[in-house]
C-alpha cells in the first residue's frame, strides 16, 4: 500500500521573521518529489519543520496520523528521516559509530544494517574507523545519507545531498536514490541542481519566499518558462 505525507498550511517563524507562509504539498512512498527554490526560499526550514526540529503550525498527516504533536525521535520512529543540510556528522565519532547511531531507535541487529550501507557506499567501508570530522566533504555527505538510511525510513527527506560532490559521484548517488525509490522509499528532495532533480522527480514544487508558486510533474516544470529562466541555466 502506498503511504503519503500530506502537509497542509504549514507556517514556520523564526521569532518575528516568517520563513514559511502557509504552504501545502504532499509526497508519497515509491516516488521522488522535489522542492526547488532560491537561497533563503524556506526549503531547509520546511524540512526541519517536517522533522520536528522547529516549532510550526499547520498539519502534517502521515497515513492519516497527525505528526505535528510528535517529537523528532517519535517522527523518526514513524519512519520519517531527515538527512540535514550541512550533513550534521558527529565529528568525534567514527564512520561506523555515526552509522550505528543512525539506527539508534532500531532493536534489530546492527551488523546487517551496517553491511547494507557499506555495500552501497564502498568508500565508507574503507574508512570505517576514521573519525567523521576528518572525512572529505563528499565522504561526509555519503555518510550523512547512509546514516539516514540506517533507520530504514519509509520517507526520507534529503537537504541538498549533492552539495560538494563531484559530478560523477552525484550521478551515482542519484542512481541510488532511484534504486531506493524502486524499493518503495518515498523521497523528498531539495536540490540547487534543479535540472537533475526535476529529471528524476515525478512531482515537483517551486518555493519562493516561503510560498509555493508552482507545482507540476518534474517533466512539466523542466519545460516551464519561468523555471527555465530562474532555475535552469
Amino acid at each position, binding site marked *: 500500500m502506498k503511504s503519503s505525507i500530506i502537509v497542509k498550511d504549514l507556517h514556520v517563524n523564526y521569532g518575528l521573521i516568517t520563513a514559511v507562509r502557509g504552504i501545502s504539498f504532499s509526497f508519497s512512498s515509491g516516488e521522488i518529489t522535489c522542492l526547488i527554490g532560491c537561497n533563503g526560499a524556506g526549503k531547509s526550514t520546511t524540512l526541519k519543520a517536517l*522533522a*520536528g*526540529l522547529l516549532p510550526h503550525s499547520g498539519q502534517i498527516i502521515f497515513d492519516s496520523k497527525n505528526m505535528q504533536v510528535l*517529537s*523528532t*525521535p517519535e517522527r*523518526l*520512529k514513524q519512519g520519517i*528521516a*531527515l538527512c*540535514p543540510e550541512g550533513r*550534521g556528522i*558527529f*565529528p*568525534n*565519532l567514527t564512520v561506523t*559509530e555515526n552509522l*550505528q*547511531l*543512525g539506527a*539508534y*531507535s532500531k532493536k534489530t541487529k546492527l551488523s546487517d544494517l551496517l553491511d547494507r550501507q557499506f555495500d552501497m557506499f564502498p568508500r565508507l567501508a574503507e574508512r570505517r574507523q576514521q*573519525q567523521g*570530522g576528518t572525512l572529505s566533504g563528499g565522504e561526509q555527505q555519503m555518510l550523512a545519507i547512509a*546514516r*539516514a538510511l540506517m*533507520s530504514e525510513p519509509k520517507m526520507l527527506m534529503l537537504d541538498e545531498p549533492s552539495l560538494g560532490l563531484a559530478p560523477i559521484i552525484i550521478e551515482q548517488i542519484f542512481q541510488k536514490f532511484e534504486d531506493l525509490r524502486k524499493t518503495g522509499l518515498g523521497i523528498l528532495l531539495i536540490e540547487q541542481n534543479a535540472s537533475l532533480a526535476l529529471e528524476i522527480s515525478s512531482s515537483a514544487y517551486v518555493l519562493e519566499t516561503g510560498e509555493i508558486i508552482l507545482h507540476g510533474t518534474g517533466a512539466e516544470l523542466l519545460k516551464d518558462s519561468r523555471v527555465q529562466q530562474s532555475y535552469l541555466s
Partner: protein
Amino acid sequence: MEEFLQHSLNGLSFGSIYALVALGYTMVYGILGMINFAHSEIYMMGAFMCYYFALWMGFQTPSPINFTLGLLFAGLMAGAIGFLVEKFAYKPLRKSPKMNSLITAIGVSILFQYGGQIIFGANPKSFPTLIEDQNLFEIAGSQIHLIDLLIYGVSALALLGLHFIIYKTQTGRAMRAVSSRPDMSPLMGIDNNKIISMTFIIGSVLAGIAAVLVSIKYPKIDPMMGSKIGMSAFVAAVFGGIGSLHGAIIGGLMLGVGEYYLIGYGASTYRDALSFTVLILILLYKPTGLFGSQLKEKI
C-alpha cells in the same frame, strides 16, 4: 627508594579516587557545558547513604558481602540523587544562560551541606567497618594494604565499565553525539533529555562508589566532607582537560601522586595548596588542560 614506592602507591590509591570523582565533573561539563558544583555533595551523600544502610541492615562483622552491598547501595543512591538534582534543579534552566545553572549548582551544593548538618548532624560520624583492613604483603619494603588493593581494583573495574558504556554501547555513542551535536542527535532518534539524565546518573554512581572507598580508608564522615575532595577532583578534571574522559583519569592520578609526594617528603602543609597552584598554572598557561583538544573523545 622504598619510601618513594610507598608514596607512589598511596598516591595512586588517592589518585584513583580523584579520577572517579573527576569523571563526574568532566562528563557533565562535556554534555552540558556547565560545572556541577553539587557533584561533591553527591559524593558526600554516597557516604551517608552507605552509613545508614549499614546501620539499617545491622551490619556487625566486617565481610566482603557487606562491603559489596554497601558499595552497590551507595552507588545506586548517589545515582538516584544525581538524577533528581539534574531533573529538578538544572533541567528547568537548560535554556537560560549558563550563569544561572552555575549559581543554582552552588546553591544545591550549599543546600546539601547545611541540610546535611541539620539532618545527619554536624559532628563527624564513624563509618562502619565494612571490611577489615590488613597488611596483605610487601613489595620492595612497601606495605600493601587490602583497602588500597580494593581501591585500585574497584576503581579499575568502574573505569573499565565506564569505558565499555561510552565506547561500546548505543547509549555511550549517544552521549558523545549529544555532547558534540545536540542539534543533530534528535534526528537519530535520540532523546537528549534521557541521555543527559544518564550522564548525571553515571557520574554520580562513580562518586558514590568513591565515597565508600574513601570512608573505609578514613572512617570519619561529615556533611562537609565533599568540599575538599571535590575541589581536588575538579582541579584534576581541569588539569586533564575538562570534557576529556582520559584527561580526568590521568589528571586525577597525577594529582593524587603529587599530593602524596608533598606529604611524604615533609611538605604536608602544602598539600592543599597543590590543587590551587595547579589550577592557577593551568588556567594561566594551558586552559584546555592536558587532553582538552576539541575533537578527541570529548563527551
